[in-house]
């Protein structure tokens, strides 16, 4: 009779990053810039479930875009860099600055007149470049850069497609 061997526990990391974003959309003359935050849990250095948000200003309609995404990311854990691909679903709020000024809390929660809601999907391709670590190597700083494309099927209230660049700094913390 074969005994079950104890299964090796997976490495689990917490990761977070903050950075800047800039993009263009399929609307003529539409360009944007802002900030982005990402946080997630990574398993065995190769797979993560993560949340990323963007808050940005775009030129057409002088609007604020708030993107909330939930995704999965696959990594290649090389020593010098960790290339990755992230696939995500996104819910985006788009509203004029006037609307945001009238109801700032509404901007954060997506509640109020003048906020246009849309759902879509996206893909990011990029890499993390480690640039510092704790002595025990459980904590690592990274510079992160990626190209992101988002697609929204309903283009009656906003552009179909956004393509942009995200650049940030983040960390990974090995829990076990």
């Amino acid at each position, binding site marked *: 009779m074969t005994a079950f061997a104890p299964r090796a526990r997976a490495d689990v990391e917490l990761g977070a990053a903050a*950075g*800047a*974003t*800039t993009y263009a959309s399929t*609307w*003529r*003359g*539409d*360009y944007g*810039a*802002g*900030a982005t935050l990402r946080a997630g849990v990574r398993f065995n250095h190769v797979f993560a479930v993560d949340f990323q948000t963007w808050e*940005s*200003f775009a*030129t*057409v*309609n*002088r*609007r604020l875009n708030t993107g909330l995404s939930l995704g999965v990311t696959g990594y290649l854990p090389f020593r010098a860099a960790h290339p990755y691909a992230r696939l995500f679903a996104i819910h985006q709020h*788009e*509203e*004029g*600055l*006037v*609307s945001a*000024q009238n109801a700032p809390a509404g901007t954060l929660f997506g509640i109020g*007149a*003048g906020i*246009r809601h849309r759902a879509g999907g996206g893909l990011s391709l990029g890499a993390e*470049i480690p*640039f*510092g670590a704790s002595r025990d190597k459980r904590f690592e700083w990274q*510079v992160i850069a990626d190209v992101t494309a988002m697609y929204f099927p309903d283009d*009656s*209230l*906003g*552009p179909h497609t956004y393509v942009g660049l995200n*650049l*940030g*700094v983040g960390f990974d913390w090995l829990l076990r």
Partner: protein
Amino acid sequence: MTTRALRALLVSMSAAIAVASTSCTVGTPIADHPCPQGGPALTYDTFGKTFFQDYCVRCHGGNNGYSSRSFTSLDLIRADKDRIFINAAADNKSMPPGPDGPSQHDRDMLADWLACGAP
């Protein structure tokens, strides 16, 4: 390598903040746009009705799932004229969505019409 990457990050973040801050001017209210001397030259029948049909009622046309605000009658437009002005009239361009909205001439006419009380 690390120093260069950090410098690039700082430069890009500064550029993003600069772009956002130079572009973030919030709208002109109706109070800043007086009715032209001599009174309004436009009316709902000669201007307002067509303007709102062309640019607004697709979303602001009643219970269509896009907006709770409806601009299908003169009374409804008058009741919301301050908000309409700051979103779409004169140099305000938050509405309608997209780059292909009314011409600047039409937005200026909307501003005059609303400022005169939307007759």
